């Protein structure tokens, strides 16, 4: 069973009406995390192999080659955690 802590260094929750979650993957695990996510999620658009617009189970998000991702329109942190577990396992 994959643990989010194996891959994720920090999750930043932005303030304001529309809360975004910014996921920062661990530096030494970021390439592995990006590769896993790209395998599982559907690539809607790729820009210069730097940004990937992805969807996974009706959740759309952007993944950056630098090991960061931005998730929108998720209501709860637990929802994000479920998505991450699925993507990283």
């Amino acid at each position, binding site marked *: 069973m994959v643990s989010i802590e194996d891959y994720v260094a920090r999750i930043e929750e932005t303030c304001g009406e529309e809360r975004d979650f910014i996921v920062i993957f661990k530096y030494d695990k970021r390439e592995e995390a990006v590769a896993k996510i790209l395998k599982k999620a559907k690539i809607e658009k790729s820009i210069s192999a730097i940004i990937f617009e992805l969807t996974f189970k009706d959740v759309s998000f952007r993944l*950056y080659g*630098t090991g960061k991702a931005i998730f929108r329109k998720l209501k709860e942190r637990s929802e994000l955690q479920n998505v991450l577990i699925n993507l990283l396992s």
Partner: protein
Amino acid sequence: MFDPCKIREDFPILKRKINNHPLIYFDNAATSQKPRQVIEVIKDFYENHNANVHRAVHTLSQEASELYENAHEEVAKFISANSIEEIVFLRGTTEAINLVSYAWGLRNLKKGDEVIISLMEHHSNIVPWETLSKVNGFNVRYVGVNDDGTLDYEAFENMISEKAKIVCVGHVSNVTGVVNDVKRIAKVAHDHGALTLVDGAQSVPHLPVNVKDLDVDFLAFSGHKMLGPTGIGALYSKREILERMEPFQGGGEMIREVSFNPVTKRCSISWNDLPWKFEAGTPNVCGGVGLMEAVKYLRRIGMENVNAHECTLTEYAMQRMKECQKVKIYGPKDASVKCGIIPFNIEGLSSHDVALFLDSYGIMIRSGFHCAQPLHQTFKLKSSARTSFYIYNTREEIDRFADVLKEIDQL
């Protein structure tokens, strides 16, 4: 002669690469980078002079005390205060404003009084007053801003009355970079019997600031935004005001005497001299020493030169950013009425996306509300991206930034 390329040699961090690109640091409104002179003085303090201050007769304590007092002296000179008695060292701007709101506001504000704040304030100049108003029952009133982000002076002058006891305003907006005419604001406030508190977090590091000329009653600022370490900042106030105020926190250092009376079975307490009366507990001595070195560094460059360099960069950056069709810049179009801060958004992208994209190219900018949600609400913005410059930034960096913005523009 002012030469940013020469200045850059003093900043070891600027040699770093981030995501395989040379670091471009454009998040100076959040915090500045530190020159080796500041880094070395901190190292030297802990290696050679570390001791508690004002507590002991031994040599090290004397050295540390002298350095710490010199630091107050240097900061006082930097803003043209009369003496070190007018300079209280604290953790930073936030703590300084909280000191004023609690040590002054708690005792001087009552139901029916008004505190006037501008809508462009950082949360740290809003929250302490709103919080205290729930205790003391005074009213907090907000002065609006014009469409270009400048303060609505007419609204301010119409709003202020004898009910106003203090006017709290930022010298420079941390979102738009707008420079407020605090001298004019202080004059109007004084004409109505009110004091002025100026949040100088974005002005003291970037402009020549003379508290005597501005005639403000309180000025708060942070060391970390002006090349100094984090955890150190200062509150300036006129000596007569500080003398009338009760301390903010109680403890060691801020007292002259704590004497137990065997008859009343209570302690009677007398306060220490200024500024120590407001510096309870062991202070951030090394932070003060680091701040002193930062101030010396800025004085050597000259604050007029700092300001001129940032104005030139801002004008150039705004011009280059306008080449990108999807970029929308907020705030005044005239760079001469602002400091080196440019808020913007890119159509169809969130500010966080913009920041993450730029990060991929080693360019560090801020995204979000910048702790100024009411101003974003005024502009009907969910958030904004913000680029902010300092002495070590160059036109070449702006060119690189503009090129990456163009790439985003074409997405």
